């Protein structure tokens, strides 16, 4: 069994050589490394999946505002609209956008969520994985496989770039969540290892440079609404990859670009709320009102 997989090239060659899927190789390695059975490992993943489903349900049923009062009632607006007017892009689009918003809003009202990879980006992976499961007719085991795939992709990125807005901007939080979702979705739809990794790369490539400039320093604006956007972004990446479109820059090099971009990004745009949206006139007014 493969012990150390630190790059996408290694992951790809391991899967090709052994004939295993990403989730199969990953669950074997994880079980071994954590001294547990594969079943134990899958049970932990299942527990997190269940928490994701609960967060969606709780979020869909709540209207409560966050402590700052800035966010909390947008998901209900979306649900209301879809009741009267179907989305142009169909039911799955509706599910993904509402699930992402529901989870994100649950987060900012101090509800229970799963940080995936972070709390600010917690709505993206669950919305995509769970949102498409009805349409694709997938059972729980398939969702667990998808979540393992997402986690493995995120892990490999995190070997190079810390998944934190303060270190590399939002490209490393919501951006990576979107890439994880793109990979998981492509796997759920029967994509090959190359297609899965291309979906990941395409998603990240189109989010390079995404800044982290939260208003009042709170994980609310722009974070909450960014979740439905980047969940859909993942679907686009997956569609493209499944058609055989490839990223001209290979996955590992895209991550190199992510790392470099994160380093070059001004510290004022990395969670310090010293520029961007956080220093707009309205944001400064809000700051005076909320933080004093």
């Amino acid at each position, binding site marked *: 069994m493969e012990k150390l997989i*630190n790059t996408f090239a290694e992951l790809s060659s391991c899967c090709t050589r052994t004939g295993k899927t990403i989730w199969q190789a990953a669950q074997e390695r994880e079980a071994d490394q954590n001294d547990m059975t594969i079943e134990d490992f899958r049970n932990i993943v299942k527990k997190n999946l269940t928490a994701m489903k609960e967060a969606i349900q709780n979020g869909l049923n709540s209207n409560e505002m966050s402590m700052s009062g800035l966010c909390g009632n947008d998901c209900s607006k979306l649900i209301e609209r879809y009741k009267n007017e179907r989305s142009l892009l169909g039911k799955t689009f509706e599910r993904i956008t509402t699930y992402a918003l529901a989870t994100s809003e649950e987060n900012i009202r101090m509800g229970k969520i799963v940080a995936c990879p972070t709390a*600010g980006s917690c709505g993206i992976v669950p919305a995509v994985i769970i949102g498409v499961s009805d349409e694709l007719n997938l059972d729980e085991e398939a969702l667990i496989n998808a979540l393992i795939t997402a986690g493995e992709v995120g892990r490999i990125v995190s070997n190079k770039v810390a998944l934190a807005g303060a270190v590399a901007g939002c490209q490393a939080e919501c951006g990576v969540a979107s890439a994880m979702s793109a990979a998981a979705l492509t796997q759920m739809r029967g994509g090959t290892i190359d297609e899965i990794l291309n979906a990941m790369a395409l998603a990240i490539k189109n989010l390079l440079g995404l800044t982290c400039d939260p208003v009042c320093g709170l*994980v609310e604006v722009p974070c909450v609404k960014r979740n439905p956007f980047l969940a859909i972004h993942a679907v686009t990446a997956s569609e493209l990859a499944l058609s055989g479109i490839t990223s001209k820059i290979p996955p590992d090099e895209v991550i190199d670009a992510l790392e470099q971009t994160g380093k070059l990004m001004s510290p004022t745009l990395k969670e310090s709320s010293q520029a961007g949206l956080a220093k707009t006139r309205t944001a400064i007014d809000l700051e005076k009102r909320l*933080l004093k």
Partner: protein
Amino acid sequence: MKQSSLLDIISPVMVGPSSSHTAGAVRLGLLARNIYNEKPSKVTFKLYNSYALTGKGHGTDKGVLAGLLGLSVDDTRIKDIFNLDISKQFEYEFEYLEDFNRHPNAVDFIIEGKHSMKISGDSIGAGEVVIRKINDFTVKCTGKYNTLLLVYKDVPNMISRVTNSIHVNIASLHCDRYAKGEDASMCVCLDGDIDKKVIDFLGLIEDVYMIRYIKKLES
């Protein structure tokens, strides 16, 4: 390269809204609770920098208190902790400070009771935390390992006496001292679990002033 786990990427299950400001705060509280290991009568929470500035909006104040009371990061009671009976066990207050020599997300727990203790820690990102100081000793306690913590007089052979009594693998060992022959501290991170008997035995060693066994945090 250290082998990472994908479980770190798809967890923790936590109450929001921020892994560093909410979950990290709870975890720091939990570690402080285990280090103090007694019932406090009064606690002052000093929140620094970003923890002070955006702490309220992120529930950092609720988090450190909830952790100190033993609630885990996914406990939905955290949100209402100030109104719950469990938070009436001791007096507490918050101070909000700015200090650029400290980490952006730093907290001091000033705990009064039968003994007084000052515990300082940082939330270093993605919910990961480090307790860096107990009173004036540098330690390094992350909650990722079962950790044995000792404060003792700096005398020869102390390290070997401790390590000889432990029969599980040692993941890391960190020592610090004021000066030669003065007070010293040892922080031993373990891959497994040790028996209470071993801890009691180590506590009997002459020149050991304080010993704590801090269990790995569950989430």
